[in-house]
């Protein structure tokens, strides 16, 4: 187990003018579960691959457990990795796949066997040890990949979208299992994903990335609750945060949305009289058929089972609001919305940065 210290890491792929990672610095504590979250092309996988030693940075440094590994070959870094495509060895049995790293490290045969048995039991692969990967389902292959990674007792465990090739139900199931396994191991883990649900549910901390930079770093609830800019709010959450143009009262107590006024959070005071964007999560919008601060027209009604997702028009802007599952509405209905001031986040209309 070790901490990971990334300093000013720069990488530009040959033939590209834009940096894949743009001067990234990140400190990951010993035993921490760090999630790198972002849309495709944001540099999260590049960052992971540089930590793994599969790509070399142009500038900056990486230290694992106090040892500089920036330009060390992958096999000398003492890492373990789970790949998105599983990357199990098709010509080897499940047993040999799991044992691969230990065998390469010339570990004692008895210990290798003991570890393989342990990992196989943990991941419910005991019955499949003598099969070839081709005889396994996708979910089982991913289990093999995880087993192969955890037997290594590596300093740092890297995971590159390990759940994204699984179907939805399996993904949810395995996510819980993965969290328990990693919790019990206590290994420093760096996990790359584009799925905000995974990021929030797994990470001790989440680093949201965009265009080669980390735009927000914090614990999952904080990142979800108080996105520091519009991009983060629009990326996290399903459906993501709503953004509405508004103007702050000169004294900072109310927000004008068209002709309607909603109470402003304390942060509005610094922006008295200015244009802002209101950020509000769908589940924080109170929907009522009788009264509220805003009047809205229902466009689409989508029952999700746990809630009813309404797409409504306020003026000419569309909002998504999550109403209780018992809420009944039909397209064309008029509903009333209230925004609790405590749940509102304000963003500067020009910079899209959070207003504090």
């Amino acid at each position, binding site marked *: 187990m070790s901490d990971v210290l990334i300093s000013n890491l720069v990488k530009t792929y040959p033939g590209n003018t834009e940096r894949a990672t743009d001067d990234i610095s990140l400190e990951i504590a010993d035993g921490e579960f760090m999630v790198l979250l972002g849309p495709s092309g944001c540099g999260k996988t590049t960052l992971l691959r540089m930590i793994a030693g599969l790509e070399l940075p142009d500038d900056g440094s990486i230290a694992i457990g106090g040892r500089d590994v920036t330009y060390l070959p992958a096999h000398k870094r003492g890492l373990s990795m789970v790949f998105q495509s599983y990357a199990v060895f098709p*010509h080897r049995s499940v047993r040999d796949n799991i044992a691969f790293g230990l065998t*390469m490290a010339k570990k004692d045969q008895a210990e290798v066997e003991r570890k393989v048995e342990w990992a196989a039991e943990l991941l419910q692969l005991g019955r499949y040890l003598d099969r070839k990967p081709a005889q396994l389902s996708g979910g089982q292959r991913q289990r093999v990949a995880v087993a192969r990674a955890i037997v290594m007792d590596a300093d740092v465990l890297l995971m590159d979208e390990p759940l994204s090739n699984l179907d939805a139900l399996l993904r949810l199931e395995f996510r819980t299992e993965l969290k328990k396994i990693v919790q019990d191991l206590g290994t420093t883990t760096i996990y790359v994903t584009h799925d905000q649900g995974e990021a929030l549910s797994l990470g001790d901390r989440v680093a949201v990335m965009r265009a080669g930079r980390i735009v927000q770093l914090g614990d999952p609830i904080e990142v979800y609750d108080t996105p520091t800019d519009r991009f983060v709010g629009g990326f996290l959450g399903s459906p993501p945060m709503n953004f509405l143009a508004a103007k702050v009262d000169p004294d900072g107590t109310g927000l004008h949305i068209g002709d309607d006024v909603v109470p402003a959070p304390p942060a509005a005071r610094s922006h008295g009289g200015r244009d802002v964007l209101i950020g509000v999560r769908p589940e924080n919008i109170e929907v009522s058929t009788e009264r509220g601060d805003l009047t809205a027209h229902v466009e689409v009604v989508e029952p999700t089972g746990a809630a009813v997702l309404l797409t409504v028009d306020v003026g000419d802007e569309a909002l998504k609001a999550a109403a209780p599952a018992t809420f009944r509405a039909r397209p064309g209905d008029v509903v009333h919305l209230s925004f609790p001031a405590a749940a509102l986040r304000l963003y500067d209309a020009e910079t899209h940065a959070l207003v504090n």
Partner: protein
Amino acid sequence: MTAPDRAPLRRHRRNRVLLQVACVAVTAFMAVPLYLITLAAVSSRASLNAFPLSFLPTNLSLETLTAFLSSTGVVPSFGNSLIVGLWTLVLSLLIGVPAAYGLARTAFAGKEPYQLFLLFTRALPIVVLSVPLAQLFLTTGLYDTTYAVILLHTALSLPTTILICASVFLAVPVDVEEAARVFGCTQAQAFRQVVAPMALPGIAAAAIFTFVQSWNEVLAASILTLNRRTLPAQVLSSLGDSPLAYRFAGGFALVVPALLFIALMRRYLTNMWGSTIR
């Protein structure tokens, strides 16, 4: 309700029958000569001259084949062919596999032109290559040796070996190789432990292709040798002034080893052209 129009169904059935007929016709086109040559090779000399010729194996005898095998130069040339084929195979893999791996895994300036350039060796007619080479081999003392033929056959087979193997390596996922490196392999170990076993069927297919190409090549072998001929060159040179039976037996002896080789390796061949290399 009117009865359904059955014309499309009838058309469908008729097309299936026609397809079968076409398949049989094409197969016969390939198989009948093979059958006739085999039949002639294992029939007695007398029955070959009989009229009408029997199309059934009524007069079996090994007389023709033994006569062919015991005629001058046949057995040594058979050996030469084997030596040339196997060495060509070994050399072309030794040079071709690393080249193919490089082509598949690295991006370098001029990669596309290089791949095209590879095929230029095959664009030149063998005669055009052989005559200057014969000159060169005469001066270097390699003329009329199996080495000369091996070198030329290797050169001829390299483009296909490299391109086939490169496509085989392309089909081995990079991820798997990277996984091997993360789990403690150097690049060379990753190749030996993971990439090579996964690519083996495809490489075997390339090897077969090379061997059969070398086995069947006659022109260069005839030009570059006089006394150390390969089997096809030997048969070709003595074809004009040999009896009919000898020609059949020679054809048979040429076809059978190549066919056997392909039959043995068929699994790998279908693997190569199919999508599975695992």
